[in-house]
């Protein structure tokens, strides 16, 4: 895995809002093909970290490299699945139309012949029969899977999911992880979650937003080892810390 190119690299990154320091000295990286979980309690700065990865915010110090480039240049190669909590239920749009948004670019008009790729993305999330349904008629879990299809339609180099299982019913969650398991190894996957105790068994490594440093008032990112549990999940061993910049093989064997 270490021979593969680096997918995401944070080097000594700090970030502050005008009156609030959030992150300091964040250094970590992971490689293409890895399945990564980023965990942290609510309000710890996960969303800020995501914004830095997607180039929606700029670091106050340090650099972020996404797929070898500054995020603003390479973010169109990302399949992003937001929480989309503020969604407007009266917005008139079909499921297929939402998925098609995943191949929209900055200024061009739609290319012809996208129906096949939309159908393929919908079948990846096991929703092929619902393309013509209004998006607002779906359940919360189904809507989240449509957003996964929207992220997959452009065949992204990396998939980023923000709290993918939040407010999801069991069935939708199972189907979502079915989809992710078929992508594992081929596509780099980063899931962000507030569940600190356990992560899906698919996860290779876990990064954790550390507890608040009282002196600086900021947080940083550390890495914890994982332990397999019988119920198909992995437990995060918070009592042990691994340097965040250490790689997969070193974590496994070192």
């Amino acid at each position, binding site marked *: 895995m270490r021979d593969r190119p680096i997918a995401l690299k944070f080097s000594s990154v700090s970030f502050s809002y005008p009156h609030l320091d959030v992150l300091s000295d964040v250094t970590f990286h992971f490689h293409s093909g890895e399945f990564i979980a980023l965990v942290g309690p609510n309000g710890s700065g996960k969303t800020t970290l995501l914004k830095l990865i997607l180039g*929606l915010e700029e670091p106050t110090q340090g650099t972020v490299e996404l797929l070898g480039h500054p995020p603003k240049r390479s973010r169109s190669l990302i399949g992003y699945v937001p929480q989309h909590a503020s969604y407007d239920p009266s917005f008139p749009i079909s499921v297929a139309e939402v998925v098609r948004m995943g191949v929209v*670019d900055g200024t061009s008009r739609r290319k012809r012949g996208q129906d096949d790729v939309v159908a393929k993305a919908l079948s990846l999330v096991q929703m092929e029969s619902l393309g013509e349904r209004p998006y607002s008629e779906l359940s919360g879990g189904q809507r989240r899977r449509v957003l996964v299809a929207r992220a997959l339609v452009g065949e992204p180099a990396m998939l980023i999911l923000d709290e993918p299982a939040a407010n999801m019913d069991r069935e939708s969650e199972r189907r979502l992880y079915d989809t992710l398991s078929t992508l594992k190894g081929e596509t780099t996957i980063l899931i962000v979650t507030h569940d600190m105790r356990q992560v899906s068994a698919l996860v290779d490594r876990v990064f954790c937003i550390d507890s608040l440093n009282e002196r600086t008032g900021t947080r940083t990112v550390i890495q914890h080892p994982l332990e397999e549990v019988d119920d198909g999940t992995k437990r995060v061993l918070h009592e042990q810390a691994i340097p965040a910049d250490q790689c997969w093989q070193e974590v496994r064997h070192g």
Partner: protein
Amino acid sequence: MGDLATFFSALVSPDFPFVRNAFFAGALSSILFGLLGSVVTVKRIASLAGAISHAVLGGIGIALYLSATGKVPNLPPMVGAIIFALLSALLIGTASLKSKQREDTVIQAIWAIGMSIGVLFMAKTPGYSDPSSYLFGNILLISSQDLWMLLALDIIVIILIWRYYEQIEATAFDEEFAQVRGIPTRVVFLVILAVTAIAVVLLQTFVGIVMVIAMLTLPAGTAGFGAKSLAAMMVASTIYSFIFSTVGLAAGWVFDAPVGAMVVVTAGLFYLGRLLANALKKRRRRA
């Protein structure tokens, strides 16, 4: 007072060019109300458009004052209106992008200050100028030149929406995702505001400042009940706007009442009817 038959004969009679002009103005503004109204509705910026349309009165007041006092002779009120519309669009747009939590206050401030400036300057303008004629408009005063300007703006808006439909739809549906896809969401937002501001200035001649905002939201809101896509909402909303403005014009003729108010009452009643029907349908489905 007339009846419907005399309305239709007036529509085709060369003796009543103002009725025909009003009809064409209704048809041409329906396109703006339909297309821009749908964008304003799905982007949830109706209050921003409301503030811009009211702030326009400030520009009209200053232009009337400068023209009547001879400081800038023959300055058309529309020039002041357009300057104020674009300025307020820029201020509100910047406030909305930079500080979401202050957005409401800025909207209300611009709404109130713009109108007050208008009233103050009109009061100091020599001769008679009545703010209410600008607030409520008069479609029967539409000139051929106004019609050409409406047609030009229709064409510009149709081209912009046809060319950038996907970017507009994505920005309105999920702004953060659109930004990640490389869509310049801020530029899209500011252009929507600026075009809406210019449209508001032209349309206020038709139904008046107060009612522009109603016609930007009611037909689109009515169309939103059954539409399956933003494009379908735009088409249905344009058709509704055309029906409402024609019915309003005919009702204004028949009852000898202000046309602008008739148009909005027609649109409002129809919207409330759809809202009620929709609520009943939902209730029946639940039962």
